[in-house]
């Protein structure tokens, strides 16, 4: 985690674009842990998660000159790269994917999601907001974001029309947005 006086993310990205390796180290120290946790959550295994984070930070290293602040903050940009790559790998392993609903239940209900002590209030608020959603909306969001399922797969495994998937996703995210708005500046904000 960064300390007061550490360079803001925009400054770190500018240094990264200038091919400053120490900037890459700073970026990793800030977001490597969260990126790894996200990749592990999606893939469920450490070697793949490590490769995803490695590739994501290298992509950031190469792509820093093209980073545009108006498209999102650095944290969101990096984690979206991690997410995209992890989901890409998961989809390639279709044959090895566990049955979706069972997997979703296991993952959603075990200690790794609900019971573990939270690091800080921002994390707690996101979890609480997710848990507070109606089960169908929460599952739709979790299966899509953490499970890597496409909209057609979601409709199939949940046994609902495509329009219902879209509706659950939209309403669920809107509720999350309202619940998180007070803390959004901290949890999704820029350093």
């Amino acid at each position, binding site marked *: 985690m960064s300390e007061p006086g550490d360079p803001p993310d925009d400054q770190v990205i500018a240094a990264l*674009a*200038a*091919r*400053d*390796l120490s900037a*890459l*180290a700073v970026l*990793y120290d800030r977001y*490597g*842990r*969260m990126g*790894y*946790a*996200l990749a*592990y*959550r999606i893939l469920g295994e450490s*070697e793949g998660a*490590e*490769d995803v*984070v*490695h*590739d994501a*930070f*290298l992509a950031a*290293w*190469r792509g820093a*000159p093209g980073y545009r602040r108006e498209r*999102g*903050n650095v*944290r*969101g940009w990096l*984690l*979206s790269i991690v997410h*995209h790559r992890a989901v*890409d790998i998961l*989809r*390639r392993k279709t044959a090895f994917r566990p049955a979706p609903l069972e997997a979703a239940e296991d993952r959603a209900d075990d200690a790794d*999601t609900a019971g*573990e002590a939270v690091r800080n209030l921002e*994390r707690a608020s*996101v*979890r609480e907001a*997710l848990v507070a959603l109606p089960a169908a909306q929460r599952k739709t*969001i979790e299966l*899509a*974001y*953490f499970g*890597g*399922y*496409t909209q057609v797969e*979601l409709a199939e495994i949940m046994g609902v029309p495509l329009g219902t998937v*879209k509706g659950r*996703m*939209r309403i669920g*995210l809107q509720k999350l*947005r309202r619940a*998180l708005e007070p803390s*959004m500046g901290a*949890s*999704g904000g820029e350093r």
Partner: protein
Amino acid sequence: MNHVIDELELYAVDALPAVDRDRVTAHLTGCPACHDELTAIARVVDALPEAVPDREPPARLRDRILASARAEAPVPAAPGRARTPWRPRRIAVAGLAAAAVVLAAVDLGALNRLQTTTEERNTLHRTIADVSFAERSWYMRGTGEYAGSGGTLYVTGKTGRAFVLFHDLKPIEPAARYTVWLVTTDGQRWIRAASFSPDGQPNQRVDIDAQVVAYRRCAVTVEAAATERPSGLVVMESNIGPPPAQ
């Protein structure tokens, strides 16, 4: 204009089929209203990783990332001078000019060494350029007694050129060869893509003369001698191929 508002949530969580994703992406470039809405949705989606339980990455991961980036890094700028975006031609010309200045004052042995250095530098610059344009890549981790070594298979978007950038290759017997294989989609045929000896450098580039995305897997074996059939130990491998059909 047909807006894409009702697809933005699924777009933000990457749950749209490729054809729809591309259509939404194209629309967003010319529609500020949809773009603003996506930005608001993306802020919520970006918060989702906060719900994931904390997990400590392996300690080696940080060093591995920095080592890979260092392998791609260009020659550092001189201290005190503003750094500018890397341009292959500028560096190549600068390198040759510097070599020419030095050549005026050195003996023939030094000349040979400088020529070698220039060739290595040009190879390095070509690799950097190719990596910069790489569209897809797969990392192959060394296993067993080859742990610590590895290689990244790159495919460049513009030319389809493929190569593997190996790192920390272990020494092997003088007659032995590292051999790169491409495995067909049915898993039945192993096509030899390259065969080489380690050059002792931290990084080694090996070019692949094949359309690698037509294959399912890339594997590296250590063979006792040059061969067209794999019989040695598989020391690193990765699944490869086209993106999954949506």
